[in-house]
């Protein structure tokens, strides 16, 4: 059999099913009980722990690790989930190397943090596998809240509100819940259909109904929601993508990395996902890395990631850059795309080197490409929104927008990093504020 990886153009089945399965298994395999004990034993139970301060959801990390040490992973999970209801997903997708684990004092003493992410996963996995949903609804309040978007921000907000006894309706534009947990996160970070399992588990609290295929701005209006509900929480994420230049026709043939990733995540048979022999990814964030790594894992022969500024300026962490390099992705920095041409059905994309202020140097190079993925950032779409702050919905610290009765959080709202864990924190905090507000009205 000829090596399918050498086949020109865009083709499915470049690797055997077995290889694909190996390639897309857990990036960090879960800890077994003994490994968890050993890892937990390293925690010093710090006072006013720096790791907790670094966690956007303020999980009491020393307490949950101690609960693991004493053989009580379910108690540990409850400590985690009380602060972060998507603690299971966050354990898998958080860039811990720039959050809790970066702050761990073990870095100071021996350059090696406690494995907080993996311990969090150990606890939450045990709970979800072995225990019923750990939270109960308070008595019904009769108040109704609309949540728009069933991503991490929307789900987190809905759960907290339901816990307080409010009735929640989530309006979700897609036909599946989860947001980018389901459509964006790299496959090897969330294996085994975890995103849907987590959504189902979260909804066990009761009092939340999800209406799929309902979009704000298409049939649903903000005014209508305000009329029908006691409060509205907007968590629509960033549905659009930035364009490479003002003239889209010049880049005909370039696809959005998020669409590629979404298609990959929804595929039930990885050997049916087509990938180019030569793939170029433009961008320097998590999405660019995820697209490049997954292209490589699907069997692309050459994957080149090109970022316009220097390596140090990449939004992707050093860990992620190293991950890409270890999978065979070639990283080129300080170069911006200038033109695209097509010859005999193949694309040729030309880049020009530039310095960190994006001043071109005049030197150019050209890469052949069967596929080009653009990953230069997502943007907010929808017309029927409260006032913006720059390119996002303006909110205060509690998530209130400038429209009374409307809160927003997650990627669509101003402030905070665009991370799953930040979205969860903002959803939770908005729920607290909504709850406080509803109690007085």
């Amino acid at each position, binding site marked *: 059999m000829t090596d399918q990886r050498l086949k020109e153009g865009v083709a499915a089945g470049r690797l055997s099913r077995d290889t694909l399965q190996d390639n897309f298994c857990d990036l960090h395999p879960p800890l077994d009980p*003994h490994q968890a004990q050993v890892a937990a034993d*390293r925690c010093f*139970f710090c006072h006013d722990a720096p790791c907790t301060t670094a966690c956007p959801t303020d999980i009491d990390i020393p*307490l949950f690790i*101690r*609960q693991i040490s004493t053989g009580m992973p*379910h*108690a540990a999970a409850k400590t985690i989930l009380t602060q972060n209801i998507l603690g299971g997903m966050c354990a898998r997708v958080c860039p811990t190397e720039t959050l809790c684990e970066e702050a761990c004092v073990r870095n100071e003493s021996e350059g090696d943090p406690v494995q907080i992410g993996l311990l969090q996963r150990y606890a939450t996995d045990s709970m979800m596998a072995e225990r019923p949903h750990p939270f109960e609804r308070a008595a019904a309040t009769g108040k109704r809240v609309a949540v728009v978007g069933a991503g991490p921000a929307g789900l987190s907000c809905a759960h907290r509100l339901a816990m307080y006894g409010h009735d929640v309706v989530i309006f979700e534009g897609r036909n599946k819940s989860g947001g980018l947990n389901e459509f964006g996160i790299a496959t090897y970070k969330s294996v085994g259909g975890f995103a849907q399992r987590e959504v189902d588990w979260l909804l066990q609290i009761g009092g939340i109904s999800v209406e799929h295929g309902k979009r704000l701005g298409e049939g649903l209006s903000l005014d209508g929601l305000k009329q029908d509900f006691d409060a509205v929480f907007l968590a629509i994420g960033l549905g659009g993508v930035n364009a490479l230049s003002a003239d889209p026709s010049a880049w005909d043939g370039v696809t959005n990395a998020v669409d590629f990733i979404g298609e990959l995540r929804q595929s039930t048979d990885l050997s049916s996902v087509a990938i180019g022999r030569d793939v170029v990814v433009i961008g320097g964030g998590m999405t660019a890395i995820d697209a490049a790594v997954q292209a490589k894992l699907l069997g692309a022969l050459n994957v080149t990631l090109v970022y316009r500024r220097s390596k140090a300026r990449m939004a992707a962490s050093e860990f992620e850059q190293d991950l890409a390099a270890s999978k065979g992705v070639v990283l080129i920095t300080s170069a911006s795309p200038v033109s695209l041409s097509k010859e005999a059905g193949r694309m040729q994309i030309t880049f020009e080197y530039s310095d960190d202020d994006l001043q071109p140097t005049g030197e150019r190079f050209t890469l052949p490409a069967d596929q080009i993925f653009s990953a230069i950032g997502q943007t907010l779409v929808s017309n029927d929104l409260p006032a913006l702050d720059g390119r996002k919905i303006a909110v205060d610290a509690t998530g209130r927008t400038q429209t009374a009765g409307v809160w927003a959080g997650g990627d669509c709202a101003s402030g905070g990093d665009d991370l799953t864990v930040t979205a969860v924190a903002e959803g939770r905090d908005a729920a607290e504020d909504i709850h406080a507000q509803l109690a007085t009205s």
Partner: protein
Amino acid sequence: MTSLETNFLGIKSPNPFWLASAPPTDKEYNVRRAFEAGWGGVVWKTLGSEGPPVVNVNGPRYGAIWGADRRLLGLNNIELITDRDLYVNLEEIKRVKADYPDRALIVSLMVPCDEASWKAILPLVEETGADGIELNFGCPHGMAERGMGSAVGQVPEYIEMVTRWCKEAYSKPVIVKLTPNITDIRHPARAAHAGGADAVSLINTINSIVSVDLDNFAPMPTIDGVGSHGGYCGPAVKPIAMHMVAEIARDAETAGLPISAIGGVTTWRDAAEFIALGAGTVQVCTAAMTYGFKVVQEMITGLSDWMEDQGYETLADFQGRAAVKVRDWKDLNLNFVTKAVIDQDQCIKCGRCYIACEDTSHQAIDMSEDRIFTVKDDECVACNLCVNVCPVEGCITMKRIEPGQIDERTGQVVQAEHGDWTTHPNNPMSSQAAE
């Protein structure tokens, strides 16, 4: 619904976790913080008689032993009783008790061994509204040299006498805190019981020298070139404390006497074990001193989760259930025969079980050329050493030889009925032989 609520001698606390009389309970500031952190009760740092308070050393008063990763395993101290004025302490106790009526507040006392001294302090304590007193007959250093603490606790007659004085002059529960620095804990416990004690608490710290500085040839902690023996506590002392608690729980004379267990309680599990051995509450010192008051949160959540898993609604549902299973050696069933079994899938082939058995036990493990380790049933005496030295948890287990089967080591058929030393033919005093 699981409840950790505790009723010990009529003193109620929301959970069985009390702070032992020691630095964590030295003053109002600490005790308030402890209650805020969730502790069910405290035993206030031991008060002495009116007058100028004792003074502590001004150099290091603690020494310790650690695991390889600095986990503190044992702590040693040469601290005395409170070095703060009696009346300041009493004022603080009164204020704190008034503000925390739902928590247990016990006052620990140690005054000279004469009736006048005890009868002088008791009304003052009564006045604070505290829930009870604990007589510190345990402190093994410093105070003992002055005829107090363990110097009293080592003489059962003194214990009985002082306890009786206190019961006469004080209306609320009297707990007697015992020293482990004796040969048989049952004697001081019986004395406390005879004196009318409502409960005993144990253990106080164990006489110890925790380490020797080999540069200066002095015990540590070292004060100006020399040192003194101190009191040992922390995780390392728990096995000793558990034995003593069990001895009191199963002694015919003291059976039923309430026990507040102390010694190495660090996690919920330690507490559950003590309660299973009969304790009504547990007291904690070193764990709080190592990790801060917040450590109680793990104890509370862990104990209630475990109880919920087991279907226990209250502490009474499992209290004492292990105490009745602590027996004398002579009562152990010699017809209970087991053999070690090595799980080859889990074995990492380190050879530790082999060399332990070969060099120091019964030469009952076989090692093949390609490092396969197997137990020889005809040699294995089931000592459990291999289980304890194997680095892989659960890799070596003990399998019972069912009655009716042959024990290959003895060639005998294993008997179904209980047969212990009291009836064994090799025992010259066995009841059978006597017949």
